[in-house]
């Protein structure tokens, strides 16, 4: 536990000092939203707020790839893995700390993205329920961060890691995005049934639980050389 806290503190301190990740993510998300808005053109978005909500999730996934690819970059570039791995602390603490830090970075980025989303895409005064969207984002971020930290550790020592990480991650993003999109789109008024928020959150919670267990158990194997 002390190791986890120290590792998390280290990750946050490094980001605070280096300011590498979060600014890049924010710029990316803003740029992507602008691109999508312009690319779809016109005053009215075909498909309306529903389509926009789907696109928001796509942008979220790609932004998280940005954060994950740079995970463990410091450890790799300065050979620090040897220091961490020869220490008696549980290796899974490294995973847990990185997942927590990524979760926080994603949260900060989305806090910037959401108001922009509203600004760019709000149409007919209708929008997805903020509560549902925020809850879905929180749970999705957690799942992405946990699985992502595991996969980031895996590709850390592999050649084409920038390309490989999105490829490895994408199949796992698909069920997540399917449910998240459905859930948030169905929260756009008028709500006429559709996927209840609780059901969607239930699925996301299941997703998170499975990858929490798998991440915890498998990280040890991924960092061993």
């Amino acid at each position, binding site marked *: 536990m*002390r*190791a986890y*806290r*120290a*590792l998390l*503190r*280290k990750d946050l*301190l*490094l980001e605070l*000092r*280096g300011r590498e990740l979060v600014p890049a993510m924010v710029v990316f998300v803003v740029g992507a939203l602008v691109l999508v808005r312009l690319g779809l053109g016109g005053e009215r978005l075909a498909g309306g707020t529903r389509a926009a909500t789907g696109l928001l999730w796509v942008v979220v996934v790609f932004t998280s790839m940005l954060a994950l690819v740079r995970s463990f970059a*410091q450890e790799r570039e*300065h*050979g*620090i*893995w*040897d*220091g*961490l*791995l*020869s*220490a*008696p*602390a549980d290796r899974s603490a490294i995973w847990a700390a990185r997942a927590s830090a990524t979760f926080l970075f994603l949260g900060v980025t989305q806090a910037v993205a959401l108001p922009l989303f509203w600004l760019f895409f709000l149409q007919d005064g209708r929008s997805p329920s903020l509560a549902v969207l925020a809850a879905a984002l929180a749970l999705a971020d957690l799942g992405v961060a946990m699985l992502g930290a595991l996969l980031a550790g895996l590709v850390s020592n592999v050649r084409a890691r920038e390309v490989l990480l999105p490829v490895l991650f994408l199949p796992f993003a698909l069920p997540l995005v399917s449910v998240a999109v459905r859930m948030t789109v169905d929260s756009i008024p008028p709500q006429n049934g559709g996927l209840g928020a609780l059901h969607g959150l239930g699925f996301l919670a299941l997703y998170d639980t499975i990858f929490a267990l798998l991440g915890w158990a498998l990280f040890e194997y991924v960092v*061993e*050389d």
Partner: protein
Amino acid sequence: MSSPERAPAVRCDGLTRRYGERVALDAVSLTVAPGERLLLTGGNGAGKTTLLRVLATVLRPHAGEVAIDGHVLPRDARKVRPAIGYVGHEPLVYPALTARENLELYAALYGVGRERIEQVLELAGLNGRGADPAGELSRGLRQRLGLARAMLHSPSLLLLDEPTTGLDEDGRERLRGVLAAHRGAAVIATHEPDWFAGLEHGRLRLAAGKAA
């Protein structure tokens, strides 16, 4: 040879380690008795670093047996880690964190009290530089920080990879002091074995992964 009841500090029997299909260590055998210091010599790529990394439990052996204080690796790696102090080629510190912050991280990883941090900073002659980012320290000072990091938890086995590289006269004297005072065993890879005169108990030369 020390008394037969006590397990050797380090024992390797036919240790083999591959990188992909290339053999980095080829059936290396060695023994280090408790309290002894073994020098590893050999050219670049001979396998010295690989051997140290296996002993540091960072790499697992692919064949053969490795035991530290009687504990067999990799099965008992967790038991062994608190007793090992490893200094690699790199000082293993985060350049963006201060010297003290780096040591705080490792103190947490090793379950060591924070007072120890000041002690090792003193030992390494870095007391005034604790608040400096590690990246701003000179190579020699960073090397000293790496040594301080390895001494935090008072390990019984020291594994040092070219510890004299980049050290100035003062740094070298401190290293000599640390080694002389260290009562446990040590395995030291070096290109300057003669500098360790008076401190070494034996040498092992590696060539192309084999013990020569």
